[in-house]
């Protein structure tokens, strides 16, 4: 029963604030599609438009090519899981889960026995059958989240929307639920849209994702595409922890060689990079990007491509993050905990030009990744 969802140029303004603008994407049947962005980016607004709670200013939302824009939320046959779980406090778990099926507009669709059976099945699927007679206030965060899921899935809806569903669970449970959620949704074959600010979730769960920033769509692609080939600085920054290091630089031609020169560093370009620069006729200012995982520390400062001074060394258990000051900019590097760098130690940074990203400073667009 999985459907295709087409979102076309969705725009919504609240008063003077533009929440989302010209957002378009398509979710294929049975796909798990993620909306990734920081808080305030417009993810919830997008989900609320799709569910029908909020009416967009312009744009269209189509389910299997039929527009649902004028259909009230209760008739759209979508379901949603909320960050706050939104369980009905005055109903038991079983009653919470049965609530959607008992809606007046669905009266007659299922007999009470069928409803009971469906609730039982769903509870077993989510491993909560023993909780059916409890009230929400007696449950832990993880249990509440599963009840919320149960209530959303009990109807076998056409589209499943999730708004930061596992944000408030502890680390162990979050890992576990990422896998569970993905399996659940794939087993049932329901088209799903997931909103999250956590790129780890996107990488672990989503087939494809959309990067949202200040209401604008930046890029759509598989998690790997977004990580390896970000189309601009915003996308490069959105995926990866610690986030990508971005340093301003400009082209310098000296002695027949092309260099990237920035505050406190000069890096020679290789043939590949040179040809990209030539072909794009770049003379503008650029932004040079390196992921902390792609940089290594060289204790002998002279041996590194870039020199800097240790600003802070933070061991994180097993590995460490060193913040190196290059002129005035701070560059983060993931390195082994054994390095044990001390503040103000002079070190060198090494990396391969293969892993470097170059962006145009003005437009933010990627020229080389």
């Amino acid at each position, binding site marked *: 029963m999985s459907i295709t969802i087409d979102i076309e140029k969705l725009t919504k303004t609240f008063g003077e604030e533009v929440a989302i603008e010209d957002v378009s994407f398509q979710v294929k049947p049975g796909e798990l599609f993620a909306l990734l962005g920081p808080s305030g980016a417009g993810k919830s607004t997008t989900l*609320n438009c799709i*569910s*029908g*709670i909020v009416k967009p200013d312009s744009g269209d939302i189509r389910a299997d090519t039929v527009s649902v824009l004028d259909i*009230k*939320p*209760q*008739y*759209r046959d*979508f*379901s*949603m899981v*909320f960050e*706050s779980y*939104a369980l*009905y*406090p*005055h109903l038991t778990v079983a009653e919470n889960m049965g*609530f*959607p099926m008992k*809606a*007046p*507009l*669905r009266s007659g669709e299922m007999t009470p026995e069928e409803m009971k059976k469906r609730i039982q099945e769903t509870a077993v699927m989510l491993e909560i059958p023993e909780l059916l007679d409890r009230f929400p206030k007696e449950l832990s965060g993880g249990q509440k989240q599963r009840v919320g899921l149960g*209530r959303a899935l009990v109807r076998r809806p056409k589209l499943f929307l999730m708004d930061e569903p596992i944000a408030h669970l502890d680390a162990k449970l979050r890992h576990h639920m990422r896998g569970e959620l993905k399996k659940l949704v794939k087993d049932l074959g329901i088209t799903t849209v997931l909103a999250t600010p956590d790129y780890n979730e996107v990488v672990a769960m989503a087939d494809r994702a959309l990067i949202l920033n200040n209401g604008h769509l930046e890029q759509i692609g598989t998690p790997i595409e977004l990580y390896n080939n970000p189309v601009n600085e915003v996308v490069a920054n959105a995926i990866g922890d610690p986030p990508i290091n971005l340093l301003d630089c400009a082209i310098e031609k000296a002695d027949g060689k092309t260099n990237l020169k920035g505050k406190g560093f000069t890096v020679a370009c290789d043939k590949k990079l040179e040809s990209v620069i030539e072909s794009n006729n770049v003379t503008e200012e650029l932004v040079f990007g390196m992921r902390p995982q792609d940089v290594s520390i060289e204790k002998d400062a002279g041996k590194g491509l870039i020199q800097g001074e240790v600003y802070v060394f933070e061991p994180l258990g097993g590995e460490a993050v060193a913040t190196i000051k290059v002129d005035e900019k701070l560059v983060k590097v993931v390195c082994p905990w054994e390095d044990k760098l001390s503040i103000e130690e002079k070190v060198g940074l090494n990396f391969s030009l293969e892993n470097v990203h170059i962006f145009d400073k003005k437009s933010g667009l990627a020229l080389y990744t």
Partner: protein
Amino acid sequence: MANRKIEDIKHRPKWHITLVLIIAIVVFNFPIFWILATSVKPSTLITESKPVWMFRPTLTHYIDLMTGSSERVEQSTKGDFDFFAYLANSFIISISTTIIAIALAYPAAYSLARFRTLGDNYSFWVLSIRMLPPVVFLIPISILFALYRLMDTRIGIILAYLTFNIPFACWIIKSFIEDIPMDLEKAAMIDGYSQWQVMLKIIFPLTKSAVAAVMIICFIFSWNEFLFALVISFLKSTTLTAGAAQFVTGYGIRWGKISAACIIAILPTLTVGLVGQRYLVRGLTMGAVK
């Protein structure tokens, strides 16, 4: 100064508080006690200049009240004191006011809480009606009612009481509704419920204590109300409170009968209050803390 911490304060002896409470109870309940005493005191002893404490109690006043007999010498233009009719009126009016107030105020409160109905200041506008001294409305209502033949009707009194009860109910219920997270309504709508159904099935059950508190207060207010009942009612629609005014006659005040009427009048509200005090506290305080 030694470090005085929270633990020290906890161990303060309790007798201070007990004493204060006892004094408060005595002070607040003395009038009621006095009225109770007066209602069973023979008439002759009531008007003694020195208060008489020891006497043989009598039920004469209560009996006279209910049968409408004796003391016929001074009939006020309002006619016989028909105890049971008045009692019935009080009940009918109070209960009707309460039910109608809730029925109308609840959707209004929901609308004010959730939608920007008529602007952000409208709710304050509506609720400020309650802040005016009721006496301000007395003359306008009298004129209006006379015009529309609502004088001396139960409906008339109910309408008058609703003027105050609806804004009050609206105010309390609105702040209660505002405390309920909107996610619940969003979830219910997506689950397949219309706005009305959401209000009835989700919001209403969650505001039960506020509704109970409001109902208790509306009932008590309507039952105790005197001024409007006195002015509007005449013969058919007289309430117990208004009726008791009959005992203020040209020939003197019938203290015994008034006291008896008061005691009987207090009983329903006392019962409602005692039974519902749990809801009262919960209902009023949760709405007030923002």
